[in-house]
């Protein structure tokens, strides 16, 4: 039983780690009032740049490479999200359109660059330094709990959980967070109080670029091991779903992402659990979606975003 639980938890965490990062990024952006459907594209760019960084610096940084690549992926994510920020904040573009542009541009750009860098191949080489499995010292020796949660698990997932807690603190307990939220709820009022609305929106979008890029970098370095067109296939959109599911609250958002991971791994592990493995396999394959629907209808209720989310703010009006 402990064995089964530990499989479920560890593979749920591997699956959710990138979703948590990216969904938190989306939360920052939308809290500032900018809808960011470009998360998918930002993840793609993050995944690509982390792969390149990992491949070219692995010999220098050794086992630290994955973490540094994570930051590098985040950094490039910030640069890329600038496009979305400039378009939506300064140029008053429709947020959905601009986000879609980001999503369309990212795969084209990254595959083009992949071909330039890797002798015309549409796939990068395989990275050598990965996240692999991580066991917490001391904690892993706790009976049962240690086995389930802290042995052979995913380090980025725990970092993601930590980031979620920090994000909660920033958004709800700091001056910056209050300003960010007020800009997302009522930019006019915020502006009359002397808050730099454009600045806050930029901050929100750029943080989403950072976290989205990190999310993409996690996918490459803990799951796929290389970058190709199928590396980021829908995770950005699932993250958006997690953000809405989690009602734009970092802790709930994290919970939603982990829930997605959990239902996914339950579906996979179900085959090895007695009784459940008697079911037709199709039931297990649809389980994640059915579970999500049920939870949404029964427990979550109405999910309401920031009030001025998606609206273009024009200062002089």
């Amino acid at each position: 039983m402990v064995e089964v639980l530990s499989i479920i938890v560890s593979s749920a965490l591997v699956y959710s780690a990138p979703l948590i990062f990216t969904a938190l990024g989306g939360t920052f952006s939308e809290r500032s009032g900018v809808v960011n459907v470009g998360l998918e594209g930002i993840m793609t760019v993050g995944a690509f740049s982390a792969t390149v960084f990992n491949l070219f610096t692995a010999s220098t940084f050794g086992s630290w490479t994955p973490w540094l690549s994570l930051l590098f992926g985040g950094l490039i994510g910030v640069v890329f999200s600038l496009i979305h920020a400039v378009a939506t904040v300064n140029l008053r573009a429709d947020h959905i359109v601009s986000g879609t542009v980001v999503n369309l541009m990212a795969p084209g750009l990254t595959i083009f660059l992949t071909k330039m860098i890797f002798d015309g191949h549409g796939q990068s080489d395989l990275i050598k330094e990965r996240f692999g499995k991580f066991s917490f010292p001391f904690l892993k020796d706790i009976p049962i709990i240690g086995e389930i949660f802290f042995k052979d698990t995913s380090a980025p997932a725990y970092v993601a959980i930590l980031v979620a807690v920090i994000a909660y603190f920033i958004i709800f307990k700091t001056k910056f967070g209050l300003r960010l939220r007020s800009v997302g709820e009522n930019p006019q009022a915020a502006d009359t109080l002397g808050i730099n609305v454009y600045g806050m929106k930029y901050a929100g979008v750029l943080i989403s670029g950072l976290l989205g890029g990190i999310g993409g970098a996690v996918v490459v370095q803990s799951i796929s091991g290389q970058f190709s067109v199928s590396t980021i296939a829908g995770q950005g959109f699932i993250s958006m779903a997690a953000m809405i599911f989690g009602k734009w609250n970092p802790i709930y958002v994290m919970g939603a992402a982990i829930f997605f991971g959990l239902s996914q791994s339950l579906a996979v592990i179900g085959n090895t659990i007695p009784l459940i493995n008697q079911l037709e396999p199709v039931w297990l394959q649809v389980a994640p979606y059915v579970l999500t629907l049920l939870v949404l209808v029964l427990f979550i209720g109405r999910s309401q975003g920031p009030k001025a989310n998606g609206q273009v703010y024009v200062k002089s009006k």
Partner: protein
Amino acid sequence: MKKTKKFGLGLIAAAAVLSLVACGGKKSESKSSNKDSYSAALVTDVGGVDDKSFNQSAWEGLQKWGKANDKEKGTGGFNYYQSDSDSEFEPNLNSAIDDGFKTIFGIGYKLQPAIESLADANPDTEFVIVDSTIKGKDNVASVTFQDNEAAYLAGIAAAKNTKTDKVGFVGGQEGEVIGRFEAGFVAGVKSVDSKIDIDIQYAGSFGDAAKGKSIASAMYKSGIDIIFHASGDTGNGVFSEAIDVMNTNPETPVWVIGVDRDQEAEGKYDGGNVTLTSTLKGVGAAVEDIATKAQKDKFPGGKTIVYGLKDGGVDLTDGQLNDETKKAVDAAKEKIISGDVKVPESPAKK
């Protein structure tokens, strides 16, 4: 304010140009220098021509044919059209037809409906569907592979090397083609020792590495030590998990058996390789063969050509197999070729 506006516009313009360039990269224009006007193109299954698998192998075959016949890449010679999603099959086939290619290869069974619907409207174009069959159309040839035979050999290799008497199979999507792999693998394992447990799981996708990794993780933890994957990019997750397992716990070795082409590179890690062996599928050889035939006006329209162990259409790599396993594999190969062993084509109903 004005400045930022200009800067923003510049950024977007630059980005737009870049993405245009990126799109343009696919089609390079060059006229063929050759006298005869025969030309051939292929439309990929989802994934690039360097997916280290199916598409790549096909493209290599077409390139080889092109080189041998002094053709150039581009319209009038040979080219490929990359499909990034299922919805791009038909547009890609149409572009290939519009560009005047004489023979068009559809790489992968998923293109079957698209080819079937376009074949009647374009009687002058020759179509080839790889890994599926379309019957009763004179301008369509079908190519299939006896993957079950290669999978049978993989099964023997797995059975000979498992220490736990438990092996696993990870499929992409359930269906006729992957069913052949499953059936062959199961038969191969059972031919060595019928007591070995085989866990069969389908990811429901050929491009979901995360799911592949979860499945592999569950399998390895349940004591399975060898996984045969027939799941395209989903298999990347299987390799990734196997490498992670070896990096944390090298005392209990785990293995992956690759599919369609030698996946030795995927299994490499510091201190060894988790790729036990790979089944090979001669998509490239088949493409080359048919292009050569078609060029000489001998296009096998309306026919189904089956490539198996006998004609080198499928095979198994040596990989990390020990001598004893190799011997057993070779013996089985001979028996299949001589017809003493018949490998089942579809899995037994549960």
